[in-house]
């Protein structure tokens, strides 16, 4: 696929990198030549220097035969203009733009082909807010992703010593919870993936990915680790875009929120926007302030500033001072890996959280959702099966008959409104949404092909 990425910021650069690894032809455009220098050496992309919305720049970037424009510059207006120009001049089939401002987002009707032609709007802040919210709602979960209009959830949990399933085979899950159907998609033991079957024994420290209907996920999780009720006392640091949104959502859900912001002006602004949250002006790394604000009673502490180091350090400090669970927003992927087994319980990588949304639109086959897992090494996808037995390699076949690549498994199926947890004899029908877990991302191509309908089928 030929893709033009506009804006070489955090999102743009990491998208370009991921997309080029997936054998797409990527051209990255930015107005700042310094941001572009050296990128061509590191990743196999072409860089073009210039203003992203200028027709001549888009043309140089290969606008004429681009399949996708991804506008992720810092300015909503530039993103919109670029999509408009790509649409009018080059008839680019798909245009994805990042729009941050709530003003624009509150009028979705402007984003049509006759007005501002953007096919998909992504809002990384929104995605990350959602991501953090899930983690707060499911204490114990390392990652929570939704499928099938939120009816199916995939969670990863770390099995701990006093959970019921430790030392027992996975089959026991069914004995413990006879009415609940769930599927363990993968187990990571010391960073090595195990494709589980009924006889696999769960050990303490295993990272278990389990798939179940949303209403059951709490019960399933409690089999794997000691689940507490989600704590009500939340402390956030950094009242930026993400912090503010998260505080608003948490307020709606009746959490008690304290939010720390070191910029006095911003703190004032946010205090006016929020109703019940306590806005504190100060530094999250200030031990006295934290103690005063009863950090030892906080159930979840999330540091969400723009500064990786500050986030990590304040989360570590909070943990030391007694916060139950700590999360830090960490942009640099090297840091994310460092944070494993540290005082910070969860390092949230915005790039991994965002990339799935984009991959959904880049992948072949009728993808509904793509979620990047384990820092991008594994993936969970929701894809629709089309066609019939002749034109498709999956329709009207039971799962055991499908020629799935190694390290991939079908976890669940959404048929109409019903969620079916997949077993080897489950038969996939046309228009089913299949939810797959892929341990090895390099196998994604095979899965795309598997779900693509033969050319003769129109």
């Amino acid at each position, binding site marked *: 696929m030929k893709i033009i990425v506009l804006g070489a910021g955090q999102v743009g650069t990491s998208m370009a990198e991921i997309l080029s690894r997936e054998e797409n*032809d990527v*051209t990255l455009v930015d107005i700042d030549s310094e941001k572009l220098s050296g990128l061509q*050496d590191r990743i196999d992309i*072409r860089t073009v220097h210039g203003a992203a919305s200028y027709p001549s720049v888009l043309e140089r970037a290969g606008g004429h035969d681009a399949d996708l424009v991804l506008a992720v510059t810092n300015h909503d207006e530039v993103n919109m203009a670029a999509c408009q120009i790509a649409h009018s001049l080059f008839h680019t089939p798909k245009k994805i733009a990042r729009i941050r401002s709530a003003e624009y987002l509150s009028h979705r009707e402007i984003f049509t082909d006759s007005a501002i032609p953007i096919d998909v709007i992504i809002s990384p802040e929104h995605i990350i807010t959602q991501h953090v919210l899930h983690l707060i709602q499911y204490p114990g979960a390392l990652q929570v992703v939704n499928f099938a209009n939120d009816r199916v959830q995939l969670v990863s949990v770390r099995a701990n010593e006093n959970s019921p399933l430790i030392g027992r085979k996975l089959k026991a899950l069914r004995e413990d919870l006879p009415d609940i159907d769930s599927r363990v998609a993968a187990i990571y033991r010391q960073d090595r993936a195990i494709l589980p079957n009924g006889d696999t024994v769960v050990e303490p420290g295993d990272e278990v990915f389990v798939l179940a209907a949303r209403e059951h996920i709490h019960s399933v999780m409690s089999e794997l680790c000691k689940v507490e009720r989600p704590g009500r006392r939340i402390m956030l640091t950094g009242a930026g875009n993400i912090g503010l949104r998260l505080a608003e959502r948490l307020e709606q859900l009746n959490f008690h929120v304290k939010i720390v912001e070191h910029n006095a002006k911003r703190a004032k602004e946010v205090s006016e926007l929020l109703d019940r949250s306590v806005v504190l002006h100060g530094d999250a790394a200030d031990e006295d302030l934290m103690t005063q604000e009863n950090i030892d009673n906080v159930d979840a502490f999330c540091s969400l500033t723009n500064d990786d180091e500050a986030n990590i350090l304040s989360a570590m400090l909070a943990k030391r001072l007694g916060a139950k669970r700590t999360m830090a927003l960490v942009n640099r992927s090297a840091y994310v890996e460092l944070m494993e087994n540290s005082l910070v319980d969860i390092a949230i990588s915005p790039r991994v959280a965002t990339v799935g949304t984009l991959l959904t639109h880049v992948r072949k086959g009728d993808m509904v959702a793509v979620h990047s897992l384990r820092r991008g090494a594994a993936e969970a996808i929701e894809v629709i099966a089309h066609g019939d037995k002749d034109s498709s390699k999956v329709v009207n076949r039971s799962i055991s008959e499908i020629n799935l690549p190694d390290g991939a498994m079908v976890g669940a199926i959404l048929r109409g409104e019903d969620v079916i947890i997949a077993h080897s004899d489950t038969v996939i029908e046309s228009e089913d949404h299949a939810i797959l877990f892929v341990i090895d991302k390099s196998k994604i191509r095979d899965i795309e092909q598997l779900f693509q309908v033969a050319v003769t089928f129109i």
Partner: protein
Amino acid sequence: MFSSAVLRILGVLLVMFSTTMIPPLIISWMSSDGSAGAFFVAYFATVSVGGALWILFRNKARELRVRDGFLIVVLFWTVLAIFGTAPLLLSPNPALSLTDALFESMSGLTTTGATVLTGLDNLPPSILYYRQQLQWLGGMGIIVLAVAVMPMLGVGGMQLYRAETPGPMKDSKLTPRITETAKALWYIYLGLTVSCAVAYWAAGMTVFDAVGHAFSTVAIGGFSTHDESIGFFNNPLVMIIAMIFMLVSAINFALHFTVVRSRSISTYFGDTEVKAFMVFMLLVITTAITVLAIWETYPSSGQTILHGAFQVISIGTTTGFTTTGFHWWPSFLPVLLIIMSAVGGCAGSTAGGMKMIRFVLLYKQGKREIGQLIHPSALVTVKIGNKPVPDHVINAVWGFFSLYILSYVGLSIAVTATGVDLITAFSAVTACLNNLGPGLGAVAENYALLNPATKLILTATMLLGRLEIFTLLVLLTPAFWRS
């Protein structure tokens, strides 16, 4: 520093190179010229050494760093030239010494076209073909070919590509993916070669000569299958075809790519470098023809124009084909021609020399300095085709220019020290550094009479010229080897 990742890629490249021994092997076998054994042994030696390296370090894949790029390119060109000697050494005819074989092999790969061989017409056809093919492989760059055909070189490919491709501005990719860029370049190269071969054949050459000369014309090499070079055919049509293809091959291949894609010839006329190149060529051709006419060197005016234009284009593009030899031309012409080869073709072409774009930049920079003297507080930007050129590029050109002059002087002194007369020494270094081929004095026809030490120096000179000095000199700095 010789990390296993580097050795692994070297192995892969050698295996790839070994396959190029197969066509001459087939030719030898078909014409039973007695060299089949030599090619078979050469093939076997190359493939086994390459395969051994590959298998030994197969698990050592890692991304290439900038430094690895330089190392691989220099290492590979050296190793390639060494393995390339095998058929020349082993074949009963011409039975070259090691120095001679190395000189010939390097001259082929670097598209210099200087030869130590005489009596080409009596050599086995497989050896003749092999020499032409060496030039063709070296022309577009064998590493660029490797990047094109081996996706495994993907990311690091940019490093390799940059270390091998000539010109001051190497960051522009034709396509987003480096393998596609390399492929595009090779398709154009292949297309030019095929059309050139067909044209030669239509003009009356045998298929063997047509293909052989197409290889060395498009590669701007200058090897021929005959002692008399293009003069052998004594055919004005062949000369005209050669002139056209030499000029086309001396134009930036990125420009050819744009023309092919946009299907409009006008791109050529809008390019500053091509315009400068053509004007420069025209100027020298006119001068040469005028002088030749005044001295009445050739009997007819038609011959004067034909030979004048051919020789200037052949030398100016650094090809080095000859029809009558220019070394006995009257007045200042021999010196003018040998010096003009320093300009060479355009960046990103198969031509040697310093490349036109650098001279355009130097000229504009000179003009800027003068402008600055007149208006001390003016901000003057150097522009190429309405686009400002970043200062670091201009600085790089100055650096290149000074190193070029330095190498030229140093090498000339070294060659003189081996006991060669001054004219021969200076012209041989010019001819080798610019990948031209024929020089003046004792090296006007061939390099056979030089002593081995001189030949070794000149062999290194050719590589220095082909890799545009920086790539090779980088390896000679202590900083490179400090980890």
